């Protein structure tokens, strides 16, 4: 009798949980907010949904989204990667370090991704083997990479990005930006890896509870290192896309992406405490950042408000997730 009652209570609380406001906000809040932001901005400024503005926003979204995918993996295993912007800039500098012709494109691609993955390996080793906090480990590699980059370029990078990266970064195919296609392919691959493959389940278990992970025979250290390497590799790819988008390479390509990518992931429901979050959610978080930045300009507010709006949204979004998680 008591058991039946308890079960009944459990069922009811489960039912309430799946249909309650909290659960809806937690699961779909980010998408609802994205739609709302688009509708409100359109109402104020119809030019917001013009074809050229949408293309413009999508092209801005692509490099950020690629970084966010990697950042999501790292945050899921209770980490944080501050080195992504430095990896992006270093990849951009690598892109200009060869002949600048399409013949060098593959070399550039492999060299950049190898550099990103190596940075991720260093981050992962510091975090797992020396128990350094992710914040510090990635801060240190960020500074070291920056120093090497400055030393290699003597402060002023020169040379050309191979034309194929210019095309991938800023070209369009029947109106669809190439960089968006690259981003979608990456999102599909890594969403499957995270949400459908065994590796993804290891990531969630490791992030949810490292002790459990060890008990069920998962090498948490290896999973964590792999996540940092994925993040580094994707950041390098994003750096190449961004250098092709901007066209000019300087030592700070990607500045601000480290914080923006963390913010986008957190807004998209990826918990900093690890083990919770999805790739689609994180991508929606990135889309919101781009939409809000664009909306500020379209509505005719001073550009400085972009950063203020961003700050407010971070805090509000993060506090909403804390509320619903309780």
């Amino acid at each position, binding site marked *: 009798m008591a058991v039946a009652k308890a079960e009944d209570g459990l069922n009811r609380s489960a039912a309430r949980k799946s249909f309650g406001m909290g659960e809806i906000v937690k699961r779909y809040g980010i998408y609802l907010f994205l739609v709302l932001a688009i509708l409100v901005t359109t109402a104020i400024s119809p030019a917001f949904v013009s074809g050229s503005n949408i293309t413009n926003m999508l092209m801005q979204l692509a490099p950020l989204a690629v970084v966010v995918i990697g950042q999501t993996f790292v*945050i899921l295993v*209770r*980490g*944080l990667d501050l080195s992504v912007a430095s990896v992006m800039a270093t990849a951009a500098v690598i892109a200009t370090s060869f002949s600048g012709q399409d013949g060098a494109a593959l070399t550039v691609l492999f060299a950049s991704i190898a550099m990103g993955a190596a940075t991720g390996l260093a981050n992962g080793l*510091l*975090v797992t083997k*020396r*128990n*350094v*906090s*992710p*914040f*510090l*480990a990635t*801060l*240190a*590699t*960020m*500074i*070291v990479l*920056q*120093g*090497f980059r*400055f*030393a290699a370029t*003597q*402060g002023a990078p020169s040379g050309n990005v191979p034309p194929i990266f210019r095309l991938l970064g800023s070209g369009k195919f029947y109106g669809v930006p190439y960089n968006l296609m690259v981003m979608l392919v990456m999102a599909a691959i890594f969403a499957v890896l995270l949400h459908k493959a065994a590796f993804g389940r290891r990531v969630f278990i490791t992030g949810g509870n490292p002790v459990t992970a060890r008990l069920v025979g998962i090498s948490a250290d290896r999973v964590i290192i792999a996540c940092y390497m994925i993040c580094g590799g994707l950041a390098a790819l994003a750096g190449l896309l961004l250098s092709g988008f901007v066209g000019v390479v300087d030592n700070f390509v990607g500045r601000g992406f480290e*914080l923006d990518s*963390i*913010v986008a992931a*957190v807004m998209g429901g990826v918990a*900093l*405490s*690890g083990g919770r979050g999805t790739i689609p959610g994180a991508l929606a978080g990135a889309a919101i950042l781009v939409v809000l930045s664009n909306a500020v300009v379209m509505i005719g507010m*001073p550009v*400085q*408000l*972009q*950063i*203020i709006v*961003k*700050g*407010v*949204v*971070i*805090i509000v979004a*993060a*506090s909403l997730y*804390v509320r619903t998680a309780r």
Partner: protein
Amino acid sequence: MNLTHSKLGFGINRSRAGIIVVVALLAILFIIGIAVSDRFGTSRNLLNIYEQSTGLALVSLGQTLAVLTGGIDLSVGSVISLVSMLTSGLISGDQSMVIPVVIGVLALGLAIGAINGGVIIVMGVHPLIVTLGTGAIIQGIALLYGLGPIGKVPKGFDYFAYGRLPGGISFGATFTMLLFLLSAFLLARTKAGRYIYATGDDPHAATLMGLPTTRIIMLVYMLTGFCSALTGVYLVSRFGVGQPYTGANYTLASITPVVVGGTMLAGGRGGVIGTLLGVYLVSLLNNLLNFLGVSTHLQLVAQGLVIIAAVSVYVEKRRIA
């Protein structure tokens, strides 16, 4: 018994460890410096290193307190920038405005800290995210106030940065050192000081013990805001004008001396004296690299390696984001 500690063998996990490590590093760098150049060990150069440590020391003092409670303040750079803009913008060369404006901006620092602390407590969001958000908002406000250098300060305002005590000793650096000694005393000898450590060591246990953890967190972020504001005033004294990005580099730079000085990011361990020595270490290292003729670019690499070396020696009691 700390398992990780014994497994790794050479990990150092004692409260005084930070100070020992930094003093050893300082000694090594000092010996290298004397071996490399005759001018390195001169009192003139050493006083110069001492003077140049002031800005980083001021901001790192506040950061240490936030880190001791297991938190972090990523809004310090923006607060420094906003305060520097307001200080020179509002004084605008008028001698009679100096005192009210300085009091005003220091109060603003306390108020911003109170907002940080309040949001952290009420919303229950990680300090990293909260201060990232407030930092963005404050940077935006600074840019709304002006997009470039603004205002000016009267003659004599530069005393904080360039003033000398008898013997050519920097006033600002000495003032800052006394502030560190006072903080160290208060941390060790007052209830609030002990509560800061207890809150950082285990916030849950501290709350269960009936310690006023929310008030402690509030206090700590207010003090961090105050130190950032003081750094903003110092930078105006040094450069003669406020600028919208003048504090930007201090946000992450303020973390280095804290962790190099042995304060654990997880909270509850470390102290301000370690941080002060960490600041001197950074200042000495930069000076030494200049003597060695190392390009400023590679100086960055050296700084990153020092962070890695230092934090690899300490064993964090647990990982944090």
